[in-house]
């Protein structure tokens, strides 16, 4: 189990943002977090990454309390791709991806051959090897998203947390990235925030639905992405259309 969460409550400043969440995520595969804007998805992801300490309750990663890990140890087990990340001007893709090796570097020592190999492997996995020496800001939106994903891949942790990896991408780029994310889920545990429920239905092995900092549903997509739980999560009705011969349902707001 990558994450086991028991009765987790979290405050930001004086506001309680997450209220008594309990869930366990399956080992390997892709977990999607869904819910309306401001429901605490990003806060939950930052908490899973060990960046926000829970007010009460417990958070375990692979059987160990996340709070008991050293910073470096935590970084070697759990990688986070936040939306707030900034690519400094002039940085090349390879330099950006190499930042992912930080928890493996020895202080004041340059990267080893193993580090270089991990960076090359990550670039290869996202298909950016031909663009490795280009500046990050010169890339298209889809390529840039791949560069950030390569950074967390170079971190070589078994668990990846991705905050809206499909945001701001046109449909062909989304489709390409979904294929890539599916491959990542075959060898790692991936937790990501998603807005597109049809993609969630087809990509995820497990779905968490949040509303106002409370867990509405946690389970396989066939259970969570149905009209009942979705109505409870988003406050509106949904049509879940099952097309013959395809993976999951097409999920659309009712009456759209």
């Amino acid at each position: 189990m990558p994450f086991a969460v028991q009765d987790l409550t979290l405050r930001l400043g004086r506001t309680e943002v997450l209220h008594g969440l309990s869930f366990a995520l399956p080992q390997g595969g892709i977990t999607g977090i869904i819910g309306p804007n401001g429901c605490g998805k990003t806060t939950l992801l930052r908490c899973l990454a060990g960046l926000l300490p829970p007010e009460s309750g417990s958070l375990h990663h692979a059987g160990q309390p996340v709070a008991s890990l050293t910073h470096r140890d935590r970084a070697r087990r759990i990688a986070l791709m936040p939306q707030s990340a900034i690519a400094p001007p002039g940085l090349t893709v390879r330099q950006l991806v190499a930042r992912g090796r930080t928890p493996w570097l020895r202080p004041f020592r340059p990267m080893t051959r193993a580090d270089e190999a991990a960076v090359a492997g990550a670039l290869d996995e996202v298909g950016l090897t031909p663009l490795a020496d280009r500046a990050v800001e010169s890339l298209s939106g889809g390529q840039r998203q791949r560069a950030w994903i390569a950074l967390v891949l170079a971190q070589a942790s078994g668990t990846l947390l991705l905050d809206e990896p499909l945001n701001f991408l046109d449909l062909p780029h989304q489709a390409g990235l979904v294929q890539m994310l599916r491959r990542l889920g075959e060898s790692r545990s991936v937790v990501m925030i998603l807005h597109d429920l049809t993609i969630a239905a087809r990509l995820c092995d497990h779905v968490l639905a949040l509303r106002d900092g409370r867990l509405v549903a946690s389970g396989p997509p066939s259970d969570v992405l149905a009209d009942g739980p979705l109505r409870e999560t988003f406050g509106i009705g949904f049509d879940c259309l099952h097309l013959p011969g395809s993976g999951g349902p097409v999920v659309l707001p009712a009456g759209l």
Partner: protein
Amino acid sequence: MRLVLMLLALVALAGLALAAGRSWLGPVEVMQALFSGPEGVGRMLWSLRLPRLITGLVAGMCLGAAGLVFQTLLRNPLASPDVIGLTQCAAFGAVAALMAGLPPMAGAWVGAVSAIILLGWLAAHPREGLAPRAVVLQGLGLALLAGAGTEALILRAGDGNASMAMAWLTGTLNGAGWPEVGHALWLVPLLAPLFTARRILDRLELGDDLARSLGLRVGVLRAALGLLAALIAAGAVSLCGPLGFVALAAGPVSRWLARGRPDPFLAALVGAGFVTLADVLARGLAPAALLPTGLYTALIGAPILLVVLRRQMSDKSS
């Protein structure tokens, strides 16, 4: 390669600084004076120009490194210690200490450390941690407040101390002797750790969340680097006054030399070269007038800053 060129340029500037002044020395004379020791032909060089050069080099290194560190920590190319009020608070503390008969460096340290504690407290956001933009804006206000406080102190003090404090406030190396070199050496152990912070600054630039998930203790590191940078900037102010534009310009210039990456050592070299060049001009152009060095750092620094910032803007938009 760029580092080697920068070092060579600095050595050349230092040589020029030893040669320049009311009486110019040739290269051979400089060498002779250096090797003859403080007695005999080398007396002027050893008693005046050498301590002045060393004080300027250390002050410039401190201002340059502190500028880059604050600009990187706050992710703002303008957020150097002279913009966010640290320099002004340090100057206030130093003038207050000077008038109370206490060591100015201690006063400058108290002023600068109070300033970063105050700014950290004012800009702390309950949800997001430190808000860099708030630090910069509130620092601008703090700078004006501390500047007014310093003027009030000087006006109250009357003629005796006031003229001394006034000359010092423009930033000057006049009067830098061996005792000042002694004070300057205090700053070296505070400066040296910043030279090893390149990798940390590089990671902090990626944003707090990513830096933390890469295993960095962002809060502790930011506080430690900010404190060290505040102490060396304040120390430099107590040595030769708030030399304008050194801290502000050294950061962008050093980044331009380092292809965009933050390198505190390179920034320190740029700062040192900058102060030395300004002092050479101050003594070489009008040796009789002995205009304050701070005048020339502003005269050179402001145009350099404009050119570099314009370059960065156009890079970004292309």
